[in-house]
């Protein structure tokens, strides 16, 4: 918001030492201003121009949502590969060590034949109730296996539910790709390479199939989300495990929520091309049809999406850094 935006009529200077007859002019003007605000908010269109000072800015939260910034972090999740079902985690204990509130508890997997440790976790428990969302674990993870989720609707009446175990922590890589496309594309190659190396050292099904019921690279999607019939598979795919958290919800509510999330994911333009029809199908999208164009459509791809709240020069700088990194990696 700039000062020039405030037209002179918006600023009322009441001269306190004016000897003239005032007769409540200030009060009348004040009432007038408030009434104008009332009129604009009641009859005007919902306002999306943040530089403006009048009108309705509200986002009606459960139905309408603002797009999250990519780097938004709430709670940690673990990633697995869509195709093979292998988890990226190698139980290197970096995250457990750095975690300030010490809420990560890992047990390393062992080869049943030899009894030697294997680069995979047998158990992985994270106490969501004590986690402080610092993101150190995601930062420190050398295998990009632990990432910060965008889901913040975790409230539950059942407290022990917040000690989240492996099969509720796992998310497919494609899910993370939808919520943070740029950030994933930066590390994708590296992470996948490391994963391939690790898979070689994992005998049998170890490091695979922690409650995911994936066999031989079957599509993960629909399996975990029977309730989300309305939501297209591609968009709903990542949300299987999350539905487990909100399992106290009624069916239709869950479906609705999933539809909303799908729509949001589509809006974010997170690479999923087949999410486009969803955007038109979901009724919720119409509610936010007036939302700023930058949010609804992302023709410039992931980068534009991440930089929504950034200034131009900052974004350019970031882009330059990324380009340099890519060049470094020899792309």
């Amino acid at each position, binding site marked *: 918001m700039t000062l020039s935006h405030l037209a002179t009529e918006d600023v009322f200077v009441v001269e306190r*030492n004016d000897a003239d*007859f005032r007769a409540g002019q200030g009060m009348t003007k*004040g*009432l007038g201003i*408030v009434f104008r605000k009332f009129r604009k*908010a009641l009859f005007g269109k919902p306002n999306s121009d943040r530089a403006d000072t009048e009108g309705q800015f509200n986002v009606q939260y459960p139905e309408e949502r603002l797009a999250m910034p990519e780097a938004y972090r709430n709670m940690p999740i673990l990633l697995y590969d869509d195709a093979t079902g292998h988890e990226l985690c190698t139980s290197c204990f970096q995250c457990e060590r750095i975690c300030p509130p010490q809420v990560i508890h890992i047990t390393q997997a062992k080869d049943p034949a030899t009894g030697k440790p294997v680069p995979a976790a047998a158990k992985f428990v994270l106490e969501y109730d004590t986690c402080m969302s610092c993101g150190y674990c995601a930062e420190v993870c050398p295998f990009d296996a632990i990432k910060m989720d965008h889901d913040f609707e975790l409230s539950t009446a059942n407290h022990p539910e917040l000690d989240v175990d492996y099969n509720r922590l796992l998310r497919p890589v494609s899910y993370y790709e939808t919520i943070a496309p740029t950030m994933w594309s930066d590390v994708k190659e590296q992470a996948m390479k490391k994963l391939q190396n690790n898979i070689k050292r994992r005998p049998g099904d170890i490091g695979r199939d922690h409650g995911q019921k994936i066999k031989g690279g079957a599509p993960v999607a629909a399996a975990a989300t029977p309730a989300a019939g309305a939501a297209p598979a591609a968009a709903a795919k990542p949300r299987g495990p999350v539905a487990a958290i909100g399992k106290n919800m009624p069916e239709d509510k869950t479906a609705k929520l999933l539809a909303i999330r799908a729509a949001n994911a589509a809006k974010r333009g997170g690479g999923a091309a087949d999410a486009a029809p969803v955007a038109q199908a979901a009724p919720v999208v119409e509610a936010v049809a007036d939302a700023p164009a930058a949010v609804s459509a992302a023709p410039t791809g992931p980068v534009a999406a991440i930089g929504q709240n950034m200034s131009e020069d900052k974004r350019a700088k970031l882009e330059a850094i990324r380009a340099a990194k890519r060049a470094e990696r020899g792309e």
Partner: protein
Amino acid sequence: MADALTQLGFASWLSVLIASIIKVTLILVGGSVGMMFLTWYERRSISYMQDRRGPNRVGPQGLLQPISEAIKTMTKEDATPRDADKIVHFLAPVVMLGATVLSFAVIPWGRMFPVDLNAAVLFVIATGGLHSIGMMMAGWGSNNKFALLGGMRGVAQLISYEIPQVMAIIPVVLMTGSMSLQKIVEAQNDFAGLGWYVFSPVGLLGFALFFTASLAEGERTPFDIPEADSEIIAGYMTEYSGMKFAVFYLSNYMSNLAVCFITATLYLGGGNGPGVDALGGIAGGLLSLIYFLLKSFALFFVMVLIRATVPRLRVDQLMSFAWKFLLPLVLVNILSASFWVALLRWDQQWPKLTEWFGAPSTADATNWGRLAIAIVLTLLINAGAVALIMRLTNRNVQKHLYTTDEELALGLS
């Protein structure tokens, strides 16, 4: 209603009893439903003034929000401080609500009058005065210093503003020649139902003064000093929770509703409006009710607008406003009202003059002349008084009473 019941064959005392019970029930239901609507209405409109949307989830447009909140407050724990005076602490909200409900006995709904008391106007003020007892009981019985401070402040404010409030009504009583609300409404039915008092200079000033004093009586912002939350938590309501707090809240909003109803009745012609008399009968009554509610809720909207605009006064500002600003203006208004009455209703005041010149009638051409003279005269008096008071209370004229910033900076104050 009692007569109709007697015709149906009830004993006379029984029909009186039944009619009273029905009336009381209707008043109570009307008052509390009105209060519920009022809370919703205030919150929605103040939300839009602050670029928000307000409660819009429970029921259509959030209309059921008050019900959900009533259920919430009633199921909450009702805590009483250990060292409180238990009985006084318990009775305070009862007294407050009782006083408010009493005032609803005489308040008309359009052209429906529950009880047509002879001194109805005074009755409303008197029941308003009873609030101060409840406030004092709440403040003292809670055994809490903030509650006591709030109670004391509230009582001081209430008894100070009662004076301009009562005296602002006197012009209306003078112009009508009666204190009965029914007669006051009837007197404003000239000019096809538009002869409201607010259109005369006397009534306009009276309306402004009465409404301002009523804001203070109803503890509305900017006069919400008894419950100034930034200074004394919640004033006399500090130690109240659950059901008792809900009763206080109910009483507050019902008295605000009563203030709007009374102001609409006294100055805005009550249920009068174009077309009421033409329709007549039940349809006319309904139309008058609609007019009346529209006027009342428009007045409440002004209250909300003021609440959204004006910051809270200081205690000394509050008192000097009542005694130095409202009171002189109210006295001047009584003066000009007596001029008005003398010019327009002299047949009732001086029978001798009527003997000599004949009674004035509205159809008479000379009466229009008198009306014009009366309007000009009272307008001059009132405008002159307002200008004079404004001038006298102006900061610059009273410069010696205020310290300037320079003096403060030099430590000379």
